[in-house]
């Protein structure tokens, strides 16, 4: 079974470490904030100028001046700080954020990522994604492994305009966790009940399959 959104978020959260400053993209990455283990503290960076982003506000707490990069109303945790966009991207580009998690349309086995436009169809803009992928050493892409029609999004070479070149080392899809090493995907874990064959079939880029590919384990 392909991972649910919640399971994706849960698996991503296992990459968190105590003391990490983390930038979470819109969607599934944001959900991961709900799965921080109790004995661990992480601080969330929002590229519009927050270090120490908290959960959504209670109805009576809503403040139009406190939003995240997805323009959602949020709160600040104790110890939060606010800064300008240039200071925020100095922080990101300078490599001070420990972990970045973001979505994508396509990735390829060269570590390229495409996530910001589909020519002729969709032009939303890259927002902060290009800075995030070039500033971070430690990036996890979360995405669906293939389209509903079974067309792989893990390619030999991205077909869409790139967001970043050679910067992605780890991908979590609804089917598998993969590393990108030496120009190929390496299958590390598979979703519960998903066979290696199924993943091989839906991966268009070069793929190395180690002898052991453990299933992910989720507490219920």
């Amino acid at each position, binding site marked *: 079974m392909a991972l649910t959104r919640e399971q994706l978020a849960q698996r991503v959260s296992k990459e968190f470490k105590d003391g990490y400053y983390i930038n979470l993209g819109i969607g599934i990455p944001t959900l991961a904030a709900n799965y921080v283990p109790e004995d661990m503290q992480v601080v969330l960076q929002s590229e519009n100028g927050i270090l120490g982003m908290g959960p959504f*506000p209670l109805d009576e707490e809503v403040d139009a001046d406190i939003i995240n990069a997805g*323009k959602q109303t949020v709160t600040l945790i104790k110890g939060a700080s606010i800064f300008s966009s240039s200071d925020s*991207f100095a922080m990101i580009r300078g490599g001070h954020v420990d972990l970045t998690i973001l979505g994508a349309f396509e990735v390829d086995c060269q570590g390229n990522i495409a996530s910001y436009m589909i020519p002729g169809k969709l*032009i939303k803009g*890259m927002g902060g994604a290009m800075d995030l992928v070039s500033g971070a050493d430690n990036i996890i892409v979360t995405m669906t492994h293939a389209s509903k029609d079974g067309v792989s999004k893990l390619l030999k070479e991205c077909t869409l305009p790139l967001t970043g070149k050679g910067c992605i080392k780890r991908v979590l899809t609804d089917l598998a966790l993969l590393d990108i090493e030496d120009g190929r995907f390496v299958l590390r874990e598979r979703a519960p009940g998903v066979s290696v064959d199924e993943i091989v079939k839906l991966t268009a880029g070069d793929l190395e399959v180690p002898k052991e590919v453990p299933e992910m384990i989720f507490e219920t």
Partner: protein
Amino acid sequence: MSGFNKVINSYEEAMNGLVDGMTIISGGFGLCGIPEHLIKEIKRKGTKELTIASNNCGTDEHGLGLLLSDHQIKKVIASYVGENALFETQMMNGEIEVDLTPQGTLAEKMRAGGAGIPAFYTPTGYGTPVGEGKEVREFNGRKYILEEALQGDFSIAKAWKGDRHGNLIFRRTARNFNPMAITAGKISVVEVEEIVEVGDLDPDQIHLPGIYVDRLIKGTFEKNIEQRTIRSS
């Protein structure tokens, strides 16, 4: 002794000197911390052929999006153009030229424009459409592209509190692009929620010194929210 009094009293005066074809650098992120009334005044004036540098272009109903319906904008320099149907249409039709610029690069280009730095190298956008036609150079084994500074004929911005000298304090994430935008305009116009007495702001806590501000005006703000997300207890 009026040399340092930046306060003006009408929006007409605020945007005085703005003419067709000028470049405006605007603060704001989404609808957060945007110079609401300065944008409305530009709409009222009907100035055309504008180039606008701003992270986003507002929504159809609010912010810079208001300038789209009368076709006042020739070109937009922005990182994100979602959440604005009219904008997307005008862009797809080729009515508006769009220079998609990564958010961090845009912020740094504005800062550079105000700071006398004509150009800088950045890793952002190397090997992507953003890097096309730009110089690539290697430093310490990594590749970077050259990005040039951005300056405007006007900059428009929104702050929280300001004093007569133009010293400014921003509030929460309404800070965003506002400080850099202000530094990068030949004439900078700032709307604030409150004008305080000179000396009321702690010198250590001023976010942007008054030297960057040419005109200051007090406004009352709608502060529209794009995504009102809440949790239940």
